[in-house]
């Protein structure tokens, strides 16, 4: 909301500077968004009269002027403006003045032998628009010597504020003045209104057909009005705050909206069908052609103001085009009503109408102001448009707004952290319009003014349905007791500014804090660092993507499809972060960076759960280096990433098994699943399916993995046992097996390990060969077995016996035979 400083001063008696006013507003909760001080740059410019303008003796295009600035002397001025003429009144600047339009500070000069002691200004030179056709030409009666900003009404800074949703009362100049007065910046000027005598019966009657549509309404006609443009001061004021002057009657309603936070509407009596205006709910099929030119299809949840023809206004939100006042109006009917804030909010949202009236009604207006506001509006209309006033028509009744709240002074310290004398707390509340009902040394009970709907209100709780009944009841009782006091503590605190509250560091709960992360959270952080230390870039990508893309990577259940996506390519929660990273790899490739290693710790979404996943995608080639030439990334890299995460997170690696049933987005032959036992899926890895690479436009190789962090069990906290440090040297033996190409290396290794557990300490695969030296469909797998004797050195015969066992176990498990 905008207002001007002079408008504020009409309500606030203060000598505070503009700067102090804006600083205070921001401190007490009315944030100043901007100040437009149009006059500051023009302050030194004065109105001047050209005593005489003659041709410059030495220049064809210049004139020599003698100018009167009202200070009793004459100035010689050289001027190039074609319109400079004897007797004209304009605006002059004296040496030392900064000219905003040119960016130059004026100096005394001499132009071709004629002295120039001042400058006559164009509109553009003053920074007031683009007109540079000549110097400013003011009416002949403009007062010479006066500051131009005063004459033009530009010396009135415009202040723009952001009012929080709880403060309907601060959406008015008077409400702002009241807050500033309470904050110690002056006094609120009285606003007295004398009743206007009625001379004839009201031509229209109110009827509240449905109490949902309206709580209380007053109305009054003024006949014999002459409607037309409103006076300049009113037009200037509305224009300054961004409103368009319409005509005097409509301008009065807008003026009341901003001055008092009291929206009004005026009907043209002649245009109203019948003699009754009904407050009722809209009927099916009814429409309203509103003042903004739009037609709204009303619902049975919308409250309307209707005449015999149907809806004439969406009550409290927007008036109708048909029955509004125009220049031909001779009798108007002023509507001054009170609506239910919730209904206004919902109606306004339903039809997406944002008006000044809605903004105020939905936040709550002064519930008792109606009679006074109607008298004041009647008076103002008669002053501007003449006419005589009818009797007042009324329906409904003033609501029960009176309520009390109690503040224990100690709570200012206990909740607000501020030591404040009780007297000052009471003064602040009184200045805000609260009146003392009772007061003792420890507490004060006040009645709440009718414009503060946010204090000690009756908003319902929304308690958790699973709370035990007595716990819920006790909490609700506590809330009813504490909330109004909390409201008052806030009022008292904010008026002094919160910088007054001393900062106190949080007391330590214990000298050494517990870990901030749970073991599971710490695992996620570790996973991120493990992947980054393997050359991957940690990424953060959107949780949603295009449904078709999501479908390439997994299920796309309807419950994970956004109802109102911001774009059609962001409409489905992703089944795996691999999808987002694969898209990112494609984007990077399109920019010329096809070799990427991207990782993300993020959500994978299921119909019934959100999984925490450490995912990664590698694409293109590894980094080129003389010692390790670049090669295309492959599924082994992805498996290595997944295993590195699992190992770092404490998964016992001996128990991890691999199966070849990875999700569909992987190449079916070059992908796997890492499991702990048959059921627990720890991770998946593999080459991305060629169809996905084609669909996303990933030009080179692309592999990925996902580690399911929720599935990883918490590592056992057992102390480690004593290490096994035998004194005898280990013996190593190599074996090469000829196996079917489909044989799993893991199965072979496991069989070898199990052949003689007491002696075999380790088995590793050190060679795998498939090629033309072997029979078709066969592969050679070479393993190194470490035997660890514990009691004595092994004899050749013992070693041979173990070797036999190994060959037999491997043969039994895989069908492989020792290569000759």
């Amino acid at each position, binding site marked *: 909301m905008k207002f001007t400083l002079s408008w504020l001063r009409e309500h606030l008696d203060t000598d505070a500077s503009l700067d102090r006013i804006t600083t205070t507003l921001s401190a007490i909760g009315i944030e100043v968004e901007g100040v437009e001080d149009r006059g500051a740059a023009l302050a030194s410019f004065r109105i001047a009269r050209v005593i005489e303008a003659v041709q410059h003796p030495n220049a064809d295009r210049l004139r020599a002027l003698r100018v009167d600035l009202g200070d009793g002397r004459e100035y010689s001025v050289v001027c190039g403006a074609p319109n400079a003429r004897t007797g004209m009144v304009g605006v002059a600047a004296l040496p030392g003045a900064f000219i905003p339009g040119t960016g130059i500070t004026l100096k005394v000069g001499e132009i071709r032998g004629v002295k120039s002691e001042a400058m006559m200004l164009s509109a553009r030179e003053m920074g007031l628009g683009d007109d540079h056709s000549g110097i400013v030409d003011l009416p002949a009666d403009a007062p010479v010597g006066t500051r131009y900003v005063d004459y033009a009404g530009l010396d009135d800074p415009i202040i723009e504020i952001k009012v929080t949703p709880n403060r309907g009362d601060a959406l008015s100049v008077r409400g702002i003045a009241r807050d500033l007065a309470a904050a110690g910046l002056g006094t609120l000027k009285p606003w007295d209104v004398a009743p206007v005598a009625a001379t004839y019966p009201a031509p229209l009657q109110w009827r509240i057909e449905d109490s949902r549509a309206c709580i209380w309404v007053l109305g009054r006609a003024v006949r014999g009005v002459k409607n037309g443009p409103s006076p300049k001061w009113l037009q200037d004021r509305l224009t300054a705050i961004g409103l368009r002057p319409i005509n005097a009657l409509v301008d009065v309603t807008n003026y009341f909206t901003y001055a008092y936070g009291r929206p009004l509407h005026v009907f043209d009596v002649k245009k109203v069908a019948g003699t009754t205006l009904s407050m009722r709910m809209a009927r099916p099929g009814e429409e309203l052609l509103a003042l903004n030119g739009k037609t709204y299809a009303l619902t049975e949840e919308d409250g309307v103001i209707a005449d015999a023809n149907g809806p004439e206004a969406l009550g409290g939100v927007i008036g109708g085009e048909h029955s509004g006042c125009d220049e031909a109006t001779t009798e108007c009917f002023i509507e001054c009503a009170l609506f239910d804030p919730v209904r206004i*909010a919902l109606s306004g949202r339903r039809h997406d109408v944002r008006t000044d009236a809605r903004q105020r009604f939905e936040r709550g207006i002064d519930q008792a102001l109606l009679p006074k506001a109607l008298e004041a509006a009647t008076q103002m209309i008669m002053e501007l448009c003449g006419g005589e006033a009818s009797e007042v028509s009324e329906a409904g009744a003033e609501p029960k707004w009176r309520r009390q709240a109690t503040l224990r002074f100690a709570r200012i310290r206990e909740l607000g952290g501020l030591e404040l004398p009780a007297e000052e707390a009471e003064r602040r509340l009184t200045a805000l319009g609260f009146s003392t009902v009772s007061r003792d040394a420890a507490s004060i009970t006040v009645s709440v003014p009718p414009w503060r709907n946010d204090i000690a209100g009756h908003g319902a709780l929304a308690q958790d349905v699973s709370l035990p009944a007595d716990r819920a009841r006790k*909490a609700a009782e506590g809330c009813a007791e504490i909330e109004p006091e909390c409201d008052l503590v806030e009022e008292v605190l904010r008026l002094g500014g919160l910088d007054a509250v*001393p900062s106190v560091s949080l007391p330590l709960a214990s000298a050494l804090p517990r870990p901030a992360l749970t073991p599971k959270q710490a695992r996620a952080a570790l996973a991120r660092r493990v992947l980054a230390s393997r050359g991957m870039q940690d990424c953060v990508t959107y949780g949603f993507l295009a449904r078709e893309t999501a479908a390439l990577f997994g299920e796309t259940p309807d419950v994970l499809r956004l109802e109102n996506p911001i774009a059609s390519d962001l409409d489905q929660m992703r089944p795996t972060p691999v999808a987002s990273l694969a898209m990112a790899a494609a984007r990077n490739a399109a920019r010329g960076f096809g070799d990427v290693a991207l990782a993300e710790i993020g959500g994978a979404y299921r119909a019934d759960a959100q999984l925490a996943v450490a995912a990664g995608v590698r694409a293109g080639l590894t980094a080129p280096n003389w010692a390790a030439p670049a090669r295309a990334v492959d599924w082994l890299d992805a498996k290595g990433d997944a295993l590195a995460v699992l190992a770092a997170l404490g998964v016992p690696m001996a128990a991890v098994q691999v199966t070849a049933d990875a999700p569909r987005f992987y190449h079916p032959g070059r992908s796997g699943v890492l499991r702990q036992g048959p059921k627990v899926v720890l991770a998946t890895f593999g080459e991305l399916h060629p169809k996905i690479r084609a669909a996303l436009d990933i030009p080179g190789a692309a592999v990925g993995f996902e580690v399911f962090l929720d599935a990883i069990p918490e590592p056992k906290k057992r102390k480690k046992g004593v290490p096994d440090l035998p004194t005898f040297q280990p013996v190593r033996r190599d074996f090469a097996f000829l196996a079917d190409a489909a044989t799993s290396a893991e199965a072979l290794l496991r069989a070898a390990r199990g052949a003689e557990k007491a002696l075999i300490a380790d088995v590793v695969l050190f060679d795998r060969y498939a090629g033309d030296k072997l029979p078709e469909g066969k592969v050679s797998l070479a393993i190194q077995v470490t035997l660890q004797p514990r009691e004595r050195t092994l004899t050749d015969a013992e070693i041979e016996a173990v070797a036999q066992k190994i060959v037999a176990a491997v043969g039994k498990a895989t069908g492989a035979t020792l290569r000759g």
Partner: protein
Amino acid sequence: MSDDLQALRAETEAALAAAADLRALDAVRVGVLGKSGSLSGLLKGLGQVPAEQRKERGAALNRLKAEVEALLEARRTALEAEALDARLKAERVDVSLPPRPSAPGTAAEGGIHPISRTIEELTALFGAMGFRVVEGPDIESDWHNFGALNIPDHHPARQDHDTFYMPGTDPNGHRRVLRTQTSPLQIRTMLAEEPPIRIIAPGRTYRADHDATHSPMFHQVEGLVIDRGITLGHLKGCLVDFLRGFFGIADLPVRFRSSYFPFTEPSMEVDIGWNRKTGELGGGGDWLEILGSGMVHPKVLANCGLDPREWQGFAFGMGIERITMLKHGMPDLRPFYEADLRWLKHYASDPLAAASLHEGI
């Protein structure tokens, strides 16, 4: 369709069915639609057809040509899929093979995203003040996201949130939304555990807003302290301690302005000092809004079953991207989520240097 055309069609269909690979398929195509293909021949011969039959014959031929082309395309798709399947089958590897001994990249090439880094720093700083980290789901009920936080359905604040809605309702009949703030973690924590409570909740949040300074997904961190005897003074102290620690400026000016949030009372906005012209934090005489905070509203406590006569505390929330951008002088929000390798490498932090107070953050 005349008999000869029907016969041609049947022949072609049979030939296509018999075509076992793409090469055979192409042979069929050439035989029918090629320069001297059977159908091409018939089309060429159209000039010899008597004038009165020409139109009908021409139409029939063109229809047949379209049909044949469709059959060819369908068969091509099928054969390509078969070829891919065969290729994939042939490419089967032994996935049980152990990976290579060294990673394809090193820590020097990798990096931690600035958002992850900021969350680590938040964790270190607030952790030292006794806070724990809590997390919650991105898809929330509107009760957790709004109702329990004293934002009823008609509240003007709801309109400002540009909420994304998901289909359906939760078991309590509440609408499902993508959380617009991390504040639901206040509710989840108060319901899950008894005070005293000190938590922060960093996480993803969503709002239907997309321009130079807004992203439909972004991150917030929520803070909540519930205890006996916690005052607004503690809130101020906690935030001043955090802000000076996070930005590494021991005398960073911090200003508190009264404000309004439905879930706190009293509420305040917090500004830090900076220089609007240079963007430098600290001196400069200008103020920059950085976070919202306040004493937890009695209604929010009561909604979670806590008696406001017994318990009170404070809450705060701030944008993680915002404090990250300010700390590192980053001009643009949008690249945070684009995973552009160049940007990531420029702003990433070293994975081997985790944020910790003893090493300095």
